[in-house]
């Protein structure tokens, strides 16, 4: 894994990125020449109507999919050219995922759910549980570590998912419609939690189609027809932070 010191301040560097889907009628372009740079500590909301390519872009950012053409450097790793096992390692250590549907393991306790990424980092059980406990306390669920996901509310489940995303101290949190399944009050709570995490220095990339959710981010990037058509700072944040 090569690391480039010059890019250490840059978490995400996407240049001339293309993605085609193979269909029966031939290749169908989803992303066309996308360029994006996200600095350390940034908080970006990616917006756009469905079919605009934002989910595909998110999958590529999350190393779940590979671009057809172009360069994607994540925290110094040229992900597009890495082999599968190394990419799994990047997903494990560099990225924390938060999904719309929470995606917790229903059969496992909250503690085991949060500790799961550490299993794949080869960390021993006592340490796994210690770290998972600290994070569950941080998201306000320290009393429920032995509960199952179906015993707590949706908002609480999303907090558990956020704790899981944080457990391996990632540089980047990727959240795909994290409030899509939550009511407005709970959504606000979750967004407040993201805000806190960003304050602590974690870079956050958020996909949403709700403008009021996107308002929480410092920067809003809008996709349309596979291209970035808008890249602006949110009004409440000062222009200097990005420039």
């Amino acid at each position, binding site marked *: 894994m090569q690391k480039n010191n010059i890019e250490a301040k840059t978490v995400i560097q996407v240049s001339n990125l293309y993605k085609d889907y193979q269909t029966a009628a031939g290749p169908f372009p989803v992303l066309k020449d996308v360029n994006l740079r996200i600095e350390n500590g940034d908080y970006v909301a990616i917006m756009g109507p469905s079919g605009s390519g934002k989910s595909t872009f998110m999958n590529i950012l999350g190393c779940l999919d590979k671009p057809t053409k172009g360069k994607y450097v994540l925290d110094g790793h040229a992900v597009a050219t890495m082999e599968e096992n190394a990419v799994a390692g990047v997903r494990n250590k560099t990225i924390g995922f938060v999904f719309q549907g929470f995606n917790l*393991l229903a059969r496992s306790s909250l503690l085991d759910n949060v500790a799961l990424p550490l299993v*794949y980092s080869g960390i021993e059980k006592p340490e796994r549980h210690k770290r998972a406990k600290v994070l569950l306390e941080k998201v306000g669920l320290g009393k429920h570590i032995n509960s199952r996901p179906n015993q707590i509310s949706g908002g609480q489940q999303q907090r558990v998912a956020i704790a899981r995303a944080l457990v391996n101290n990632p540089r980047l949190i990727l959240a795909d419609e994290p409030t899509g399944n939550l009511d407005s009050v709970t959504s606000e709570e979750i967004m407040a939690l993201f805000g806190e995490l960003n304050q602590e220095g974690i870079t956050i990339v958020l996909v949403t189609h709700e403008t009021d959710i996107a308002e929480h981010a410092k920067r809003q990037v809008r996709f349309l027809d596979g291209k970035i058509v808008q890249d602006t700072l949110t009004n409440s944040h000062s222009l200097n932070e990005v420039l």
Partner: protein
Amino acid sequence: MFSAMLGEAWHAMGANRLRTFLTMLGMVIGVGAVVLMMAIGQGAEASVKRSISAMGSNLFVVLSGPPNVAGARSATGNAPSLNVKDANAIAELDGVAGVAPVTMGKAQIVFGSNNWNTDILGTTPSYLDVRSWYLSSGYAFADSDIRSATRVALIGKTVAQNIFGDDIDPLGKTIRIKQSPFVVLGVLDSKGQSLDGRDQDDTIIVPLTTAQRKLFGNQLPGSVRQIIVQAESDKAMAMTEEGINGLLNQRHNIREGADSDFSVRNLTAIANSAAETTRTMSLLLGAIASVSLLVGGIGIMNIMLVSVTERTREIGIRMAIGARQRDILMQFLLEAIVISIVGCLIGIGIGVGGAVLVSIFTKTEVIVSTNSVLIAFSVAASIGVFFGFYPARKAAKLNPIEALRYQ
């Protein structure tokens, strides 16, 4: 990492207990059948082998008859066509290690208030050598007893049991055979059942001449019912058989092409074919049992495939948070292996238990060898790996995006 995965496998099995149990049942039945069948087969083989070695090795029996009196044939062994001189002549042949002429009959024996009816065997001291039969106590009669036709007897375990019981030492006691007093010189070692299930210990051995003159009488002096011949080695058997035929034909003045008044039977060949039969039987039993093991393996594969489909989303989540393909592969493979090994252990328990029950209720010999258990275990573990691998690989090859989207 490994222990964490083992824990996961256990957890996953516990999540759907009935299904896990049913899947395991295929394995349990397969392994149980293999262990039980092998135990029965090996038991049969062992008891046949013991019968063979009890009979003595490389043996022929020369039977008198069948007599042909004016065209009417009677049973083999009834004609007085063999005698002690024939036996002595056979002893001179090349390749012959020992010869024992035998005459026999049934008689009532009495000791005190007990009586018993048993086979009386009149023979020479070499009989015990030829049959590899030893005494558990006392001593055998000698050639001098043959010459003077003394009333002495060696008694089998069953006879001793029935007329003396447990408390009386038979040695030196006088029993009555057909009203004549005989002194018990020795007690024969137990031989157990013969190949045809006869109790070989239910017998009394007396000197040949005593039997001929004092117990059964004789149409012709010196005639015997059969002559037991031991060849020096397995290789010498064919030569010895030919030698006996030639010699006796000559001694009995049988013309070439005419019917002999004796027959030579190769006991070892009979025993070997019996051994061969049991070996084939146990092989067949094992093969049939293996089929159920195979079916159990297919059951595991079937359920693992269902499980992979059911847990597609879980696989996607695991991949997203950093599981490598081989982690997923190991997880599902381990699950299949744990199912088959736990099933196998239960199966071994049931197989062994079944073998014990069979031996208790049917009184047949069963042998559960460490080998058969080890074989069953390793086969079951390999089946887990073999039939678990395809579903596990299918899980590992899933596309994480599609897996995450799976409902």
